[in-house]
């Protein structure tokens, strides 16, 4: 998936995202409530969400679990220094692993930061996370020159993706 691809979101789409990004209202007809809030026809909210799901602007609509509450308290950000020639192909393999929730290529920042691939690994314990990271290391083999795991020691702020610089109403 390439980030160059564009998603045309008009004002109505943006207002729907802004109104629902902190969650759908907990009522039996949530989309109608959103439509009423925004002064839009009832079915338009459903139609637009469907279209954004189709285009990929919205990845999914569903329940968003809090991993910490469910005991997945060891969240390890594994970072890898992978050969530039191989990183895209290997990234696809690592990103498809069941225990990897996010996998991205990012720029290095030498000399402080030699890593170009990030894979977020979740587990109940650090031992579990480390086993999974060992498995990733095996898959990457010599293509990865070095790697590291950064555990979060403290969540200081966590909210969903927000549209910035736009009013919420």
């Amino acid at each position: 998936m390439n980030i160059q691809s564009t998603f045309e979101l008009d004002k109505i789409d943006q207002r729907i995202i802004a109104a629902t990004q902190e969650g759908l209202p907990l009522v039996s007809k949530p989309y109608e409530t959103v439509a009423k809030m925004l002064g839009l026809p009832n079915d338009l909210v459903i139609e637009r969400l469907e279209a954004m799901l189709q285009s990929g602007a919205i990845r999914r609509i569903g329940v968003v679990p809090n991993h910490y509450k469910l005991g997945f308290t060891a969240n390890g950000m594994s970072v890898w220094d992978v050969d530039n020639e191989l990183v895209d192909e290997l990234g696809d393999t690592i990103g498809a692993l069941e225990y990897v929730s996010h996998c991205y290529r990012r720029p290095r920042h030498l000399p402080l930061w030699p890593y170009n691939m990030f894979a977020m690994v979740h587990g109940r314990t650090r031992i579990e996370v480390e086993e999974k990271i060992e498995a990733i290391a095996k898959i990457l083999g010599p293509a990865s020159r070095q790697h590291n795991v950064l555990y979060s020691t403290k969540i200081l702020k966590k909210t969903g993706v927000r549209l910035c610089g736009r009013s919420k109403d």
Partner: protein
Amino acid sequence: MQLTALEKKLVNQWQKGFPLARRPYAQIAESLQISEDEVFTTIKDLTDRGVLSRIGAVVRPNTAGASSLVAMQVPDKRLDEVAQIISEEPGVNHNYQRENKLNLWFVVTASDTRQLDQTLARIKDNTGCTPIKLPLKKAFHIDLGFSI
């Protein structure tokens, strides 16, 4: 936290494909062959207990505006103070302390790259620490939820 069989089912099976229908809970209820009320109250209870952080759309990064992961090297003694300043920025939506020389990690979102850089310049001025921008170049995996 222990989940009942129904709770587990709801958490595992409805991270994607939440019905885009007038009465979504009724549709879930139909597929599970229980009542709409049972589905709704269970989901509401999971939300109240914090097991679910929300029900809604997960938006693809960089769909609207600009965003970047940012790392910073902060002296240990100043970590709380600097983290506080950063968390107060409206465009910051994840802020984690991590075990590394680069010990503070956060995501900045803005309406465009110019505004993003302005936010980072302000963070640098206000904290005296240099933010390192590590923007997404390629996503290898579409976040399709997480099995518990």
